[in-house]
């Protein structure tokens, strides 16, 4: 296990370097320029000066300057769109917000999702199964900008229970957190239900029931653990995506998180900021996928994650 961890960790720099280069290639060949995009049209001299300032006259110049600083100082350079701000400043101010909100949403989604999925599987075909799943699935049957806007206009606008957007007080986290948790909750509930139905029919569950364990213990102690496997493979990417923020939720609730920068940097062709956000997302993804693979081995010891002994 430790060998596996070390091996996977050793691969990280290589993968990150590849992602950096691919992203850079995409960003560089993508039509449009970070300078003079949108309303302002720059004259040629100003554009050359800007390109010089940002080391972006040619791809050799760009690659000669930025990657070195990233590796040496972890410095992604100035944002090409915001000028005065460095990419690191933007990441430093936005990431904690997104992580806080994302953790809240993920916890809410995972607990409710596993709970609802398990109960739906146990009451398979019954009223609870239909009602709970319909309700949960409604969360992923509407575009997120609609469900977020509806949550905002009902609970903050009409009822006035929560503040209308913004960030800072405890009440600010609830509505965006719920909006952000809808998608993971639905996926988790559904995956749990499906694999729980499989698990409920296995022999060891029959044994557990036969030896007189209570339903409660069998379901929540024995089955949930084994039904968790498909949920686990979903949780890796979901955690990375949720913790790095959502464009729609942040826009609807005016939250200063990282999600908006993912989209805006690309629409603005803000090359340095794109590289910064992509790298942050990639690190989250690699770490969580590694955790998921380690988690496999804990949940189901039969799984040989290193897979060296097979394929004969």
């Amino acid at each position, binding site marked *: 296990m430790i060998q596996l961890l070390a091996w996977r960790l050793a691969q990280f720099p290589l993968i990150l370097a590849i992602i950096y280069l691919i992203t850079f290639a995409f960003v560089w060949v*993508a039509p449009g320029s970070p300078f003079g995009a949108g309303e302002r049209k720059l004259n040629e001299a100003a554009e050359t000066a800007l390109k010089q300032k940002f080391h972006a006259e040619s791809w050799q110049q760009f690659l000669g300057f930025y990657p070195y600083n990233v590796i040496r100082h972890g410095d992604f350079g100035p944002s090409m769109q915001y000028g005065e701000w460095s990419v690191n400043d933007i990441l430093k101010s936005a990431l904690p917000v997104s992580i806080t909100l994302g953790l809240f949403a993920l916890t809410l989604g995972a607990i409710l999702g596993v709970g609802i999925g398990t109960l739906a599987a146990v009451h398979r075909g019954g009223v609870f199964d239909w009602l709970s799943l319909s309700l949960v*699935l409604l969360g992923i*049957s509407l575009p997120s900008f609609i469900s977020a806007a509806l949550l905002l206009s009902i609970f903050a606008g009409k009822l006035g229970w929560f503040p209308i957007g913004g960030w800072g007080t405890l009440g600010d986290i609830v509505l965006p957190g719920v909006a952000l948790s809808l998608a993971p909750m639905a996926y988790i509930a559904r995956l749990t239900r499906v694999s729980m*139905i*499989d698990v409920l029919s296995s022999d060891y569950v029959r044994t557990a029931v036969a030896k007189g364990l209570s339903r409660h213990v069998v379901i929540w102690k024995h089955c949930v653990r084994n039904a968790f496997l498909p949920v686990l493979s979903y949780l890796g990417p979901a955690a990375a995506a949720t913790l790095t923020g959502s464009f729609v939720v942040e826009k609807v609730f005016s939250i200063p998180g990282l999600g908006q920068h*993912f989209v805006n940097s690309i629409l603005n062709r803000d090359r340095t900021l794109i590289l910064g956000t992509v790298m942050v997302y990639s690190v989250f993804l690699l770490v969580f*996928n590694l955790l998921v693979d380690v988690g496999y081995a804990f949940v189901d010891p039969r*799984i040989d994650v290193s897979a*060296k002994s097979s394929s004969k």
Partner: protein
Amino acid sequence: MTAAMTTNLPAEAMRTPDALAAPDHLLRRVARSGRVIAGGGILLLVVLACVGTLPMTLNSQSLWYFNAQRPDLVRMPPSGGAVALWWGTDNLGRSILARTLFGGTISLAIGLCAALLSVFLGVTVGLISGYRGGWIDSLLMRAVDVLYGLPYILLVILLKIAFEQPLIALLRYPGGANFIVLVFAIGAVSWLTMARVVRGQVLSLRGQPFIEACKAAGLPESRIFIRHLLPNLIGPITVYATLIVPSAILNESFLSFLGIGINPPVPTWGSLAAEGLLPALNPINPRWWMLVFPCTLLAVTLLSLNFVGDGLRDVFDPKRDAAKI
């Protein structure tokens, strides 16, 4: 045969391997699944309504034309009378009913094409990766990691800009090129999760005795793949495929929200929802019909898709009758 009689069949009869393979058994089981019937029925109605009205919504002379701008009918609330005006009109006097039906055709087509593409890619990669293990597994999964690390909006914008103009020149039909580029962009990001899930499932299956037995019996690999692994993977694959159709439709709606989806004036459910959001939430003069009708049809369709997926999963599952505790 009545429903009550068939459900009382002994569970053992369902679990013989032949029951899985025989197509008439499968069909009969599909016919008995409430979810598939209810969800599939609603889905069929929506598809028929969307596709059946195409001759009208594509006819530029008709009031039903999806882009029939009528300055005299701007922002009309729903009313009786002409059927095209039952759901009201939008800011340009176009019939919401006609636009919702035509938009549904586009949205459903995007979802279907993207799902087919990603099932094919995801299952192939996941099977090979999970079954072979070793360096092939490492290579494929790291490739998936790398592709995951790229935000798909970047991919979509890039694909859109890089391939749309050449495709338009090739097809001489801008709408078609726009559609194809979007499907490939959405499909290209949706198969990654499928690959990881299939791989996880294969990893868990591979260690089980029946696969060992297959190998010991000297079965060719293609047979192990198709006859023994795939049936056990049908559950997750169906569930994920039916998750991909709605998520592709939702992805398109997100792109429409950003203004980089299907180009206007062609509507999709997503772009109709995005267009209707502000008028509907207007506190002084809310025009709810611009949001409520497209969103309801969208939500109903995606919900039925989800129910069909769940129902089919139960049908395909060899152990379906044993799960009682």
